[in-house]
């Protein structure tokens, strides 16, 4: 009964490949997010979707494309992976509204070789 789940947990791949990370939440939330945590543990938002609509799109290379098939899922597709994409990617969800608590998934550790 995991609230926010991500697959895979670990992803090791070669430069230039395309990969996807999936996120699902069973909390009934309207809003979902993708964050990137770099090697220095700095966390930065990438995208946010509310009811399948993109509402936050930070300065992220267009090789990253989020897709929300329904409000319980927010997937992240990455084209032409680069060494600098190596990081931990966290999905989160929250109710719609200001000041709402965000619930984070366990993270996907991506290593690009």
């Amino acid at each position, binding site marked *: 009964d995991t609230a926010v789940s991500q697959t895979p947990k670990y992803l090791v791949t070669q430069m230039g490949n395309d990969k996807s990370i999936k996120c699902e939440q069973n909390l009934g939330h309207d809003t979902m997010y993708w964050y990137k945590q770099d090697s220095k543990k700095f*966390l930065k938002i990438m995208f946010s979707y509310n009811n399948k609509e993109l509402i936050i799109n930070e300065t992220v290379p267009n090789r990253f494309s989020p897709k929300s098939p329904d409000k319980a899922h927010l997937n992240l597709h990455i084209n032409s992976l680069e060494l600098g994409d190596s990081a931990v990617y966290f999905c989160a969800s929250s109710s719609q509204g*200001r000041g709402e608590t*965000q619930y984070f998934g366990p993270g996907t550790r991506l290593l690009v070789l």
Partner: protein
Amino acid sequence: AQSVTQLDSQVPVFEEAPVELRCNYSSSVSVYLFWYVQYPNQGLQLLLKYLSGSTLVESINGFEAEFNKSQTSFHLRKPSVHISDTAEYFCAVSRTGGTSYGKLTFGQGTILTVHP
């Protein structure tokens, strides 16, 4: 734009000692304030948050933080830490208005290590 500065990257402390993790923020608009905790190899969990009202907020496991508007600070304190409090702590803010609601801006994190 908002920014968050956590003044200490690492804080070592002995078990049962008090601890303070410092957080300052900068914002031209009003913000909500949060503390999240990340245990090793896990995602972040909310520890406590300030939205409005009393400037002192508490968590269920004994942490508290006080919003100080004049000093733009939101320091986290605990009077007596346990080994299980060893984790990384992140201070964050989000705007109270505007279109990008929900966007959290995080500090750099503070690693709290509790020694026996």
